[in-house]
């Protein structure tokens, strides 16, 4: 941690820990929207555990420049109305919520309408609405590290490379098996754009929530025999899709999941049958990095671990850790400008997220070496990075099977701009001015 190099701050942190009364005065509140129950719980639980464990780790290391983190969980069950209720419940607590991370595209859409009024930033790391990358329209949304358009773009690049060039995709068929919700529909515009460019045929096959019933979808795949299947599933839908693929005899090697369809719970139940199945890895992979060791040492060894110990280092757990780290680092960045060791309000935290500059050195110090690449955001670009890798399941664990890809901003940028402008026109918003960016 950066604190280690700053004796003054460390001393301050020690003081904060020793005097409880002082610590109570300096607390930054992090609401945690989770789903530990319901159809998506197998995937929601590791994410939530990772998120909370990292917050505990930051506290164990002395907080954010001495400011302690407090947090409270609220169960959304992946339901939009419950998520809105949780948001209302937590937004005013503990001196005001720092940042919300809904972990659901549906809830993100609902909160996008509410956050500007309450001045609370939303981080949707790797999900949410793709056009919210445009920070000049979406002032409070931060789809850090990537959006579904990035994901879809990288997948197309990868299969193009596999075929020996994007032009070889001509005449091929790619099927998108997607969760029939805003989440699953997000990649369609980009895939359509790419299909037009390279001349492949896009077949979109929706699967209704929660995705247990997929017979019809895979019958369609059996009939149309696509060259590749992109799987945009979540929760139980992923393992069901793999089982159906086995039943249909569709080769798993030709299936590519989005980064939400590439975690342990998705493939574990299928076992050997899932061997060869590929999925995107958004700036992280399974495995133990230094941050995981820190969590094991400072949180789990003290008996404060949120979940089971062997979960530390799994894909979704690491996603939770990364999400929490981004939130905490945004606050830390804001403190650099607005006052070290102070409690940051929503506007200040937003500035912090807009000016995130996590270079490799900082990431290494935080223990994220080998986990992710540098991120740097700006007022106009709320995404910060557009890199991803492909990982492949070998029957027991995920292994990287490709190098880094960067999504093609030539394609995504105009799409983001036009979608954001459409949104702005609908909402009668004006684009932010350079002065507003300084605030």
């Amino acid at each position, binding site marked *: 941690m950066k604190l280690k190099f700053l004796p003054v701050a460390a001393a301050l942190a020690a003081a904060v820990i020793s005097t409880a009364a002082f610590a109570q005065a300096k607390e930054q509140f992090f609401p945690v929207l*989770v789903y*530990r*129950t319901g159809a998506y*719980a197998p995937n929601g*639980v590791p994410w*939530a555990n990772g998120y909370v464990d990292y917050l505990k780790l930051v506290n164990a290391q002395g907080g954010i420049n001495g400011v302690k983190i407090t947090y*409270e*969980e*609220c*169960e959304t*069950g992946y339901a*939009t*109305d419950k998520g*809105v*209720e949780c948001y*209302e*419940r937590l937004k*005013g607590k503990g001196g005001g919520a720092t940042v919300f991370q809904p972990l659901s*595209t*549906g809830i993100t*859409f*609902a909160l*996008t*309408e*509410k956050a500007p*009024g309450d001045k609370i930033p939303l981080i949707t790391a790797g999900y949410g*609405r793709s056009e919210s990358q445009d920070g000049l329209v979406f002032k409070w949304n931060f789809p850090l590290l990537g959006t579904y358009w990035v994901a879809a773009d990288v997948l197309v690049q990868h299969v193009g490379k596999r075929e020996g060039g994007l032009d070889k995709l001509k005449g091929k068929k790619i099927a998108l098996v997607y969760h*029939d*919700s*805003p989440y699953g*529909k*997000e990649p*369609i*515009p980009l895939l359509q754009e790419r299909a037009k460019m390279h001349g492949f045929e896009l077949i979109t096959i*929706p699967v209704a*929530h929660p995705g247990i019933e997929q017979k019809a979808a895979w019958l369609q795949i059996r009939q149309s025999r696509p060259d590749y299947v992109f799987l945009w599933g979540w929760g139980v839908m992923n393992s069901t899709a793999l089982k159906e693929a086995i039943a249909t005899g569709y080769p798993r090697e030709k299936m590519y999941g989005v980064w939400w369809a590439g975690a342990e719970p998705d493939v574990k139940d299928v076992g050997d049958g899932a061997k060869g199945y590929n999925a995107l890895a958004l700036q992280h992979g399974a495995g133990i990095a230094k941050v995981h060791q820190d969590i094991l040492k400072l949180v789990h060894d003290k008996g404060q671990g949120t979940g089971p110990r062997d979960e530390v280092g799994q894909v979704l757990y690491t996603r939770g850790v990364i999400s929490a780290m981004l939130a905490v680092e945004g606050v830390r960045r804001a403190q650099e400008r607005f006052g070290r060791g102070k409690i940051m309000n929503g506007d200040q935290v937003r500035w912090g997220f807009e000016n995130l500059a996590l270079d490799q050195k900082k990431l290494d110090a935080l223990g994220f070496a080998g986990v992710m690449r540098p991120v740097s955001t700006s007022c106009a670009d709320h995404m910060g990075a557009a890199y991803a890798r492909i990982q492949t399941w070998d029957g027991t664990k995920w292994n990287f099977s490709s190098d880094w890809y960067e999504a093609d901003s030539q394609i995504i940028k105009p799409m983001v701009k036009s*979608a954001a402008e459409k949104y702005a026109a*609908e*909402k*009668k918003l004006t684009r932010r001015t350079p002065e507003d960016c300084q605030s």
Partner: protein
Amino acid sequence: MLYRENGQFKTTYARDQQVFPILQDRIGIALLLLVAFVAVPLLAPEYLFRAILIPFLILALAALGLNILVGYCGQISLGTGAFMAVGAYAAYNFQVRIEGLPLVLALLGGGLCATIVGVLFGIPSLRIKGLYLAVATLAAQFFVDWAFLRVSWFTNDSASGSVSVSGLQVFGMPIETPEQKYLFCLAIVVIFAVLAKNLVRGAIGREWMAIRDMDVAASVIGIQPMYAKLSAFAVSSFIVGVAGALWGFVHLGSWEPAAFSIDRSFQLLFMVIIGGLGSIMGSFFGAAFIVVLPIVLDNAPYWFGIPIDTALAAHLTFMVFGTLIVFFLIVEPHGLARLWSIGKEKLRIWPFPH
């Protein structure tokens, strides 16, 4: 003692036919409205508005609409979520496609579209009854879900299928703050409750009830089943559609078809059954029970400062809530509204029951 009608003589037909014939009831309702319109906006915190009162009011309105169909006319419907969705999406389309259309007109337009769809799916009720009709109305649910997911025109070609509204205003007043939203919903709910109450105690309401109690006998005494049933579907879907539009516009602000899924239909049906079939009051009781109780149960551990695992809290909520449903249905199968009226009866002869 206090709640006694001795000495209140009804000397005219008008007085005999008023909604609340007992003076104490009128005072009670007036006080309730006063509290709801004046005291609550002044005192309640934002969370209470946004998370409890507004959803409660809107779902109470939807339950009221469903109660007309199920409770008064005896036609079981599982398509309520669908009619809400039609109301919400139609109102959205009116607002997006017609520049400068006032919000109230958009909402009512949504209600009218829901009426049309409701009547359309009500036609099978002329031939099929009871549980079979429930299955037929289920078709409405699936069809509407499908339409709003697949036909991109309805969502104004939104890539994700999610639509959103903002900048609401009524007669030049913005509907932005929770107080404004609450008062807007409250006003609409009060108006619709008064209209519904008067409908069900009028000629058309008696026709519905006659059909509910025995449709053959009703048609023998000259009630047209087609007219009665379809009018019940129309009125019910209109109210449900307006409630759906409010749910999307005022409560969620941004929604996808999942907001009006089959779960919503079941939830509303349970509200009507637990609240009391064939009772306007019951719709409010049912909505309160189903909307407010889980939130209270969910929050209870925090209020008492008991640190509890989130998943455990969620499971406990389900268990306690389920137990309470069973308890109330055993104690009073006719719903909370019946408990309420039993309470009133008891109060009238208190403290000297004979």
